[in-house]
């Protein structure tokens, strides 16, 4: 089962939030959407969830009964307990009595929330509250699970817990589309989509994205072209879309004081964003 948005364009007034975007989410896999602020990540997720109307394109998604959604906010009702939150959502999806009790116990256990079952959502830590939101999103075993930055702002241990839950959901057959600002998370996904200002810069499995990446990345204390450079730790990385050029004064190879680096996903995302911004006027 594959769900998708195809050739999707979404405009908010004069602003184009999504511009001819096509993303497929196959069942049993995790698709991670990455990009900077205003890249269109949430709009893409909300379009697939039916929360945003398309100006052009199509959406292929399951009925609401088979859709799970964790918004970028807490995703739970602060004045309800953990159990009440789960029961409320489960009730909407038609789960009741023994089936609900068994499912609730299973999910609370997997999310390590059993000791907090009687606590108000407002009293939970950020990580616990996100895990509760995740549990509420999968309580009905959705075919398509949409997670809007599920791990943003939570501690590393909770991130690991959440990733385990996401992986388990995908392993059970759900198609998972999630946005994230953590590129190490995106590398783990089976398929990643890099968005920039509403357009797909690149997408595919991480290994293929990396293999298809054209050009060179160098590092130096001072970049040759500031508009193609960014800071990584104590040094600056620089992108050469056509490869490092050779000039009459410098032999083929790297400019003085620079060394080549093997690009990671962060380099690739920034390099592709710079390539678009330096060639396409905003």
């Amino acid at each position, binding site marked *: 089962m594959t769900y998708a948005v195809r050739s999707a364009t979404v405009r908010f007034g004069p602003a184009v939030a999504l511009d001819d975007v096509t993303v497929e989410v196959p069942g049993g896999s995790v698709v991670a959407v990455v990009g900077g602020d205003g890249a269109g990540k949430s709009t893409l997720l909300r379009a697939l969830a039916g929360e945003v109307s*398309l100006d052009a394109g199509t959406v*292929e998604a399951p009925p609401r009964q088979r859709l799970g959604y964790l918004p970028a*906010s807490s995703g739970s009702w602060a004045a309800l307990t953990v159990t009440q939150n789960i029961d409320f959502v489960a009730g909407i999806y038609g789960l009741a009595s023994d089936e609900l009790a068994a499912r609730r116990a299973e999910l609370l256990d997997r999310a390590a929330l059993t000791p907090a079952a009687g606590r108000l959502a407002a009293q939970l830590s950020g990580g616990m509250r996100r895990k509760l939101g995740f549990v509420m999103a999968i309580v009905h075993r959705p075919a398509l699970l949409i997670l809007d930055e599920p791990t943003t702002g939570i501690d590393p241990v909770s991130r690991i817990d959440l990733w385990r839950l996401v992986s388990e959901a995908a392993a059970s057959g759900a198609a998972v589309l999630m946005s994230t600002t953590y590129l190490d998370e995106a590398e783990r996904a089976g398929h990643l989509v890099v968005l920039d200002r509403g357009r797909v810069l690149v997408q595919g499995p991480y290994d293929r994205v990396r293999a298809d990446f054209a050009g060179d990345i160098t590092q130096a204390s001072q970049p040759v072209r500031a508009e193609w450079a960014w800071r990584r730790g104590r040094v600056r990385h620089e992108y050469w879309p056509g490869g490092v050029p050779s000039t009459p004064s410098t032999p083929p190879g790297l400019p003085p004081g620079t060394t080549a680096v093997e690009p990671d996903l962060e380099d690739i995302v920034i390099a592709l964003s710079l390539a678009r911004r330096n060639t396409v006027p905003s």
Partner: protein
Amino acid sequence: MIVKEFRELVRDRRTLAMLIVMPLLLLVIFGYAANFYVSSVKTAVVGPQASQVVAMLPSFFDVTVTEPGGTQADARTLLRDNTVDVAFVTGKTPVPALVDGSNLFAAQSAVAALNKAGDQVKTQVLYNPGLKTSWVMVPAIIGLILTFIGTIITSIGMVRERESGTLEQLAVMPIRPSRVILGKIAPYFLVAALDMIIVTVLGILLFSVPFNGNPLAFALGAAIFLFVVLGLGVFISTISQTVGQAIQTAFFFLLPQILLSGMIFPLEAMAAGVRWIGYLLPLTYFTMISQGIMLRGAPIASLWLPFVVLTVMAVVVFTGATLRFRRDLAPGRPARPARPAHGPAAATEPAAAGGQANTAGTA
């Protein structure tokens, strides 16, 4: 810092409105509406010598009904139905003058004027013999409490859902927007109804306010009024992104109702330019109903006008507000059942009506 503050202020239109509109509003209200002096009272003169008595009455008594064949019972009916504030029953000496005490300020002015007539007139105040302020305020306060719960508390509750992002979550769940709206509103409706009962009973017990009319008619009026104010609350929630904004906006709706509904300042004493605002406010009509039923024992038939106006307001405001809220709740849902989308997912699992598979044309 000062420049920054001004820049923020200019962009915060609601606060700006409070700073500019509110002083103007208060100036206008207190300048034109804050008047306890009633310059004339609607008067009926019944009985065989009605014409002669009408000729003798000073201009303060604005005679709107003259019935030579009328009796004291007819006079009481005119007062009960709020057709007039004062009724003279001619044919006896001294002439009985019946005064509607539920219209406090008119009654006070009328009694003062009648006292000048000495032994020629025998004054009898009906419905509020002691001319107690609490007797006319308690029925109005009931409406104010319903307004408070309906607008401020309801809008806060609904905006909180939006602010916390859970409204977005509800929007993608397989639950009809009408059920979401019903679920959000029903508790406030019930709490407001409970509050109304408590305040009414306490008003009766603590202030000896009478309840002369039909409780069912009162409940019906309160229910219709609740739909109006709940509709206002829902409407406020649709134009507010935060709880703070909702409270600010609700304040704009609440303040005129307190000052211009006739609860504090008599409508008939207001300048015509301000009085019409009072006639646009739902609390004005609920106060007519609550005072009419509780104090005068008026039947629905004699209160048809406020009932009809409130019903029209309820239909317009509640329907409009819930439609706006529904639009916010389901912006991406197709208005018509979605066409089956092309593709492998849709081919094996077509979207249900109101479901997710849609195209730009139907979204």
